[in-house]
């Protein structure tokens, strides 16, 4: 029987348009959460500024060294004629600031600070990015394993994370860099490559538990969601569940924590350089320049630029990461 209320079968009851309000009806292609986050991010001016700075920094890191050389700068070239030999300070005001040396020059050897900052971006960002990648990969794999498999595997991985977190990180980083880099010849890797690889490894390797914990927690809560059961009840293998069901949901936290881990890794690299176990000279890094500058604190211009470079970079990543987190946050929806 048909009553007036029963609107002829069930199909007519569907009216998704009522929910998807404000969207062009033709746009049947739905918007994923990622796209929505991106739209929100675009509205967040602060985060976008951070993002723009990051893009700029990355471009600078990649093309900067070529550009400055084309412009006639050489980050390694000495300009000792511009140094007062007895005080070792640059001649002239503001650290020898001039057209040729817009940020002035370093004391003692008179290297151009501007071009060293540009050149330093490359190494600093490379280390920060790759070490972040490393910790994210390790952290995600182990965190997901612990969270999904549970049981003694979880116990083992969680305790390992605890142990990692109990190590005085910086101390160990120094020890390892010191010990391993002494034996370059045996490892048959050339100077800075080994150093950089080592720094990436150490920073990345010691940071994974942080991201691991987060991923584990997220996995634990995702595992309880019914779509995982749904997938299991369809006969999905654990691999399928982990990679097809869980991983897409972890992309957001992974992305957010990566953008927040990068600045902390930049600072970490700077700290290691400051403590004397950074990249070998004369290759410039910001942390290395800063640690040099500490010895010449009476010439603040020297500390100013690398300090500012670190500050701006870290701030940009933090702002962007923060914005990203807000954009992905379901509560803010």
């Amino acid at each position, binding site marked *: *029987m048909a*009553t*007036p*209320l*029963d*609107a002829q079968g069930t199909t*007519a*009851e569907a*009216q998704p348009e*009522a*929910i998807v*309000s*404000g969207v062009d009806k033709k746009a049947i292609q739905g918007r994923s959460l990622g796209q929505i986050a991106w739209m929100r991010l675009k509205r967040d001016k602060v985060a976008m500024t951070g993002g723009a700075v990051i893009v700029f920094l990355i471009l600078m890191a990649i093309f900067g060294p070529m550009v400055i050389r084309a412009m006639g700068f050489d980050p390694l070239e000495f300009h000792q004629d511009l140094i007062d030999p007895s005080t070792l300070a640059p001649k002239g005001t503001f650290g020898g600031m001039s057209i040729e040396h817009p940020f002035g020059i370093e004391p003692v050897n008179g290297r151009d600070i501007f071009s060293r900052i540009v050149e330093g971006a490359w190494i600093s960002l490379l280390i920060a990015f790759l070490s972040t990648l490393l910790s994210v990969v390790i952290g995600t794999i182990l965190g997901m394993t612990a969270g999904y498999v549970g049981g003694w595997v979880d116990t083992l991985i969680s305790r390992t994370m605890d142990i990692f977190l109990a190590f005085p990180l910086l101390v160990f980083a120094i020890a390892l860099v010191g010990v391993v880099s002494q034996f370059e010849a045996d490892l048959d890797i050339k100077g800075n490559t080994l150093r950089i690889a080592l720094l990436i490894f150490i920073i990345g390797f010691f940071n994974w538990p942080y991201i691991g914990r987060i991923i584990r927690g997220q996995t634990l809560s995702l595992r309880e969601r019914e779509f995982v059961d749904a997938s299991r009840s369809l006969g999905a293998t654990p691999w399928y569940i982990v990679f097809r069901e869980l991983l897409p949901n972890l992309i957001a936290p992974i992305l957010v924590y990566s953008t927040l881990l990068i600045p902390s890794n930049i600072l970490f690299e700077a700290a290691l350089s400051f403590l004397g176990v950074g990249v070998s000279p004369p290759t410039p890094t910001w942390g290395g320049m800063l640690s040099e500058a500490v010895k010449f604190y009476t010439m603040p211009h020297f500390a100013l630029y690398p300090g500012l470079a670190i500050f701006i970079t870290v701030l940009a990543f933090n702002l962007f990461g923060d914005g990203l987190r807000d954009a992905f946050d379901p509560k803010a929806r």
Partner: protein
Amino acid sequence: MSFLEVKDLRIHFPTDDGLVKSVDGLSFSLERGKTLGIVGESGSGKSVTSLGILGLHKGGNARIGGEIWLDGEELVGASAEHVRGLRGKKMAMIFQDPLSAMHPYYTVGDQIIEAYRIHHDVTKKVARKHAIDMLARVGIPQPDRRVDDYPHQFSGGMRQRAMIAMALSCDPELLIADEPTTALDVTVQAQILDLMRDLQREFNSALIIITHDLGVVAELSDDILVMYAGKCVEYGTAQDIFYRPEHPYTWGLLGSMPRLDREPTERLLPIKGSPPSLINVPPGCAFHPRCPYLDRTDGKGDTVVPELVPTERGHLVRCHMPAEERRSLWENEIKPALETQ
């Protein structure tokens, strides 16, 4: 004037996506000792209304208009501080989810004591005694021991009882219960409903019960207000609403419910579609996209906002259909469809 008079209440929230008209011109009144039931689907503005009466939107981003008269006092225009003084003492509220509505870090007793001492200048000891009394009154066994328990140590039903004890601790004259039993099992729900009925009788307070379960309203209410998209669509006595409903939405609600007291029907009679978003309320009658009788409104359905007009039998309905037609539809088509099979 009635004990509680709400006139043309409007509560709007400006948001990034637009203005949310959560409550849009709501009026009703309530006497001491009487119960008003408010029903409606999720998001129809029920909770916003109850919070509005308690003045809990003040200081937030809400835009409130209209009047609320409680015992001769106007509350919308009153100072926040004044309304705060009335809260808890003159009017109190019971929330839907007693677990999240109680602070997890304080004992049940402490929370009742706190509520009591805001309005009564008594020592902690006296207040504690009172709290134990209240817990006993709502039927919690061993109240002198359980008073020191934390909310999570109570079962769902006991928590709701404790919430009620807290709300009643200052003998409020108006009690608003926002979905007090939705989170509970049927057997416990029945206990709580009994308890509320008994307490209301005892305290002679005015009670507003908010729910989307028509069964619950039927159990308790004298008057019933049906809300849809922030507006009242039908308002009358319980008898009016259940025996002589005139709004298609009310019909839909009744048709959607499988009923234990009748022979099972072959099919339920649902309302098509889903509730509108309160930002983009459909033009004209908000219900028109879901209304099967749009063609009987003379084309006004999707253009003109219908008024809330009294029916012949004395209750209020917001519908463009001629009164005649509504009545005949109910008598001849809907009612039989609901009853026979």
